[in-house]
């Protein structure tokens, strides 16, 4: 069993194990149940799970298991109405079938096909029962009919030491799921939610304790004031003793609050970790999807990954899976050339897709790049005209960046052939929509002949977010911080302007109160604060009553009747029991925002630096230093990837290690110098090698600057980058 398939099988085994437990429990309850409705509910649950197992078994080519699951479903079909009691013997038979199914899957995962119990006789026995039972009169319902003999139950892998050991290393996590015998357990999300609720209760206790500490402090202030002086003049000893006791109480309470807060923080961190799963868990299905689709379109490609040990919120990852699979298939359909095409373009006949995951603050950046033919902007423009999205003159004037956005238009596809999964006009718009629903963004960069990069930015967690709190009338509102361009007060008593110039673009200043149809007059109080929000290429400005600052909030789902309100994205629990409704920046900006014209915003565009290093530590270090200085940073783990980034992302400067796999730093710089568009690009080589010979080689290769790694700490990298980019601007 190949590795990717084995990982899928492990997931399947784990899932079936959980579903079998529920089915088993339901079957037992079913046997004991006397109520029609209860029986019906149990049967529906069993049938749902059996159906899922059947479908998954079929998809994995486990035909015997698929047949057994089908017979399982059919055997229960006559009882689905709940009118008839399910005979005990049938329940036993079904339970036995579950055990056999589990043993079959376990043996398959272990690659030990000889240990797989035969499932055919079981399926046959269950099928025979179906025929007998459907024709049975209701009067016979309590009389158990003789059933065909069942094969003996399979040995229990836990109690039977003779059974081959599982090949899975005990510590190997697979999608956050663990096999039996591991020293970790699966946790139902409902249990996590319960734990979350307990933590919430504990947070309320903390708030109550803080209030008590405040009361003690106020009492002390009273004692220090005129009342205390009066009391002291009457009974000095008593007043002193009282003050000391209150001091002690207040100190003790403050200490308790700090201790509780620290323990709560640790528990919250622990819970957050439990909710997360490494991106690795998706890789198996992406590789499988890539392999299958490559077979169907007759191309060859492989998927390289880096940084996929970064853990994201499990629910976020589940929701992301479909989008990534679509992008992988899309890359095969539209990007990666045929084997002949790649040979003609002097490329490796096997196309390369790279999935890179990186944490950027409270967000994860996921890039999926391919080394295919890139997006043909000419074809995109022609297609946009054909579809009536643009007239020929508009298409002619449209910059490449804007043309790229067209591929996210619903139904937009330039593929000349329609494949099963992409190139049929459904896809990238759905990907953007799905990622947007997760508070994420998708952008694309491409260069003809070099490849395409899709960049997804997502929050690390669905439940934790940073928000700007504002007040409008009586409403406390939270705005996702990543959508806030800026928030500032107008000078005192200054009237609210009708428009505001942001990034060279005049924006109409709305009233948030009016936009949300809140009670009371539209807020345009002189001197009031103004917030500017961005979603994709749109900006909007609105005035509010009060800015209350940034806060870390716990995002809670809102009930369906509120989720219908377009401006609401959720509710933010503020930790003191209070709620603030979280506004959807997308809804506000899409409704009222102004598109930022690239030409006007040009001067605001950050300078882009490509950092190339095979060490994630060095990459991250460089990135953090450069980002803190206001640069936009793209990272690559080797020279090949770095070269592709330089071409596709239209970078302003390269910072690269020398020793790297696939293409080293010296070769990367040499290749840059042979490309007309990269010929003059500043390139800084950073190396642990510091001999005069190393410097000479770097210079000969065409490096603009050479920095020994030891000098990094002295802030030299930043000053070199600043200087080179300043030189570039002035030239």
């Amino acid at each position: 069993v190949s590795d990717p398939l084995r990982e899928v099988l492990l997931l399947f085994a784990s899932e079936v194990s959980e579903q079998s437990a529920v089915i088993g429990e339901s079957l037992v309850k079913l046997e004991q149940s006397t109520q029609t409705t209860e029986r019906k509910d149990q049967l529906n649950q069993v049938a749902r799970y059996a159906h899922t197992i059947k479908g998954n078994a079929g998809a994995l080519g486990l035909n015997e298991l698929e047949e057994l699951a089908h017979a399982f479903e059919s055997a229960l079909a006559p009882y689905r109405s709940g009118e008839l009691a399910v005979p005990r013997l049938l329940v036993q038979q079904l339970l036995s079938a579950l055990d056999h199914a589990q043993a079959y899957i376990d043996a398959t995962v272990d690659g030990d096909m000889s240990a797989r119990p035969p499932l055919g006789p079981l399926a046959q026995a269950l099928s025979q029962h179906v025929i007998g039972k459907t024709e049975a009169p209701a009067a016979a319902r309590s009389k158990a009919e003789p059933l065909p003999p069942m094969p003996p139950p399979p040995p229990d892998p836990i109690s039977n030491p003779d059974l081959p050991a599982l090949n899975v290393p005990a510590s190997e996590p697979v999608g956050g799921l663990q096999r039996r015998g591991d020293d970790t357990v699966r946790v139902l999300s409902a249990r996590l939610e319960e734990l979350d609720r307990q933590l919430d209760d504990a947070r309320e206790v903390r708030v109550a304790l803080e209030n008590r500490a405040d009361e003690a402090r106020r009492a002390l202030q009273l004692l220090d004031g005129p009342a205390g002086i009066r009391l002291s003049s009457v009974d000095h000893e008593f007043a002193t003793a009282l003050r000391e006791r209150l001091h002690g109480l207040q100190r003790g309470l403050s200490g308790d609050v700090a201790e509780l807060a620290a323990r709560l923080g640790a528990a919250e961190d622990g819970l957050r970790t439990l909710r997360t799963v490494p991106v690795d868990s998706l890789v198996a299905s992406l590789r499988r999807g890539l392999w299958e689709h490559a077979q169907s379109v007759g191309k060859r490609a492989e998927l390289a990954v880096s940084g996929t040990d970064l853990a994201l919120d499990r629910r976020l990852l589940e929701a992301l899976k479909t989008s990534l699979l679509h992008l992988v298939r899309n890359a095969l359909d539209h990007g990666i050339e045929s084997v002949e095409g790649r040979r003609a373009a002097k490329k490796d006949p096997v196309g390369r897709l790279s999935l890179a995951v990186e944490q950027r603050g409270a967000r994860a950046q996921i890039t999926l790049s391919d080394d295919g033919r890139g997006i043909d902007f000419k074809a995109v423009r022609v297609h946009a005209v054909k579809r009536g999205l643009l007239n020929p003159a508009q298409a002619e004037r449209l910059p490449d960046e804007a043309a790229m956005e067209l591929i996210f238009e619903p139904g937009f596809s330039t593929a000349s052939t329609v494949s099963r999964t992409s190139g049929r006009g459904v896809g990238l718009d759905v990907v953007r929509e799905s990622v947007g629903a997760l508070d994420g963004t998708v952008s694309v960069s491409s260069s003809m002949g070099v490849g395409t990069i899709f960049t997804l930015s997502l929050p690390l967690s669905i439940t934790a977010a940073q928000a700007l709190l504002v007040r409008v009338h009586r409403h406390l509102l939270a705005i996702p911080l990543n959508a806030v361009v800026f928030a500032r007060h107008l000078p005192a008593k200054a009237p609210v302007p009708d428009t505001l110039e942001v990034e060279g673009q005049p924006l109409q200043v709305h009233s948030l109160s009016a936009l949300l149809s809140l009670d009371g007059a539209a807020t345009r109080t002189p001197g009031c604060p103004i917030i500017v929000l961005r979603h994709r290429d749109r900006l909007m400005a609105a005035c509010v009553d009060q800015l209350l600052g940034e806060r870390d909030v716990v995002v809670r789902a809102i009930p369906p009747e509120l989720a219908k309100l377009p401006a609401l994205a959720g509710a933010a629990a503020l930790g003191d029991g209070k709620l603030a409704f979280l506004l959807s920046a997308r809804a506000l900006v899409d409704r009222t925002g102004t598109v930022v014209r690239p030409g006007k915003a040009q001067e605001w565009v950050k300078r882009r630096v490509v950092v190339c290093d095979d060490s994630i530590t060095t990459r991250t270090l460089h990135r953090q230093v450069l980002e803190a200085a206001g640069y936009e940073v793209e990272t690559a783990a080797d020279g090949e990837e770095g070269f592709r980034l330089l071409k596709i992302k239209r970078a302003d400067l390269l910072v690269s290690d020398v020793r790297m796999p696939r293409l080293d730093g010296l070769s990367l710089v040499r290749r840059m110098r042979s490309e007309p568009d990269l010929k003059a690009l500043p390139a800084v080589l950073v190396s642990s090698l510091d001999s005069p010979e190393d410097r000479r080689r770097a210079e000969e290769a065409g490096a603009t600057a050479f920095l020994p790694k030891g000098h990094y700490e002295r802030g030299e990298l930043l000053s070199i980058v600043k200087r080179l980019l300043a030189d570039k601007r002035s030239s």
Partner: protein
Amino acid sequence: LARKPESDSSMGLSLVLFVRGGVTYGVRPEEVEGAGRLKDFTPVPGAPPYVVGAVQFRSRVISLIDLMVFWGLEMRGVADLPLYIVLGTRGEGGASSVARVGLMIEELEGLAEVGRQLDPYQAEPRSGVTHVGRRDNKALVILSAAALMRDPRLLPSTTVGPA
């Protein structure tokens, strides 16, 4: 509140009773998730008038609804009622699919036994109201959380998943 109803048919019907607008309402105990004193609530921006606000109830965000406005008997929800009761119904997807809503109330009478003699409600339709009866010579209106939650205004809108 969460006590199981008595199954003995010779006994009365167990209901949780509450008062709103001077009328006593009864709801089956298994449809009651809890109740609370309204100390603080959050107004919902852009919500329809029957949604008075929202509260956190056991770490879940619950809408507080004024039935009088929901049924079109009054124009605007009353925010200064002292209590709320949370009703919940279990969907097909188990515990995670429980639909909940909070109702603003004046008084919570608690669990009581009422006579099983109830008449189907036949006056102008009010979401959730299924039967009427009398208790201590006063009108008693039976409310079904499941029926109330089937009102389209409380149902999720149809969404289309990713292709």
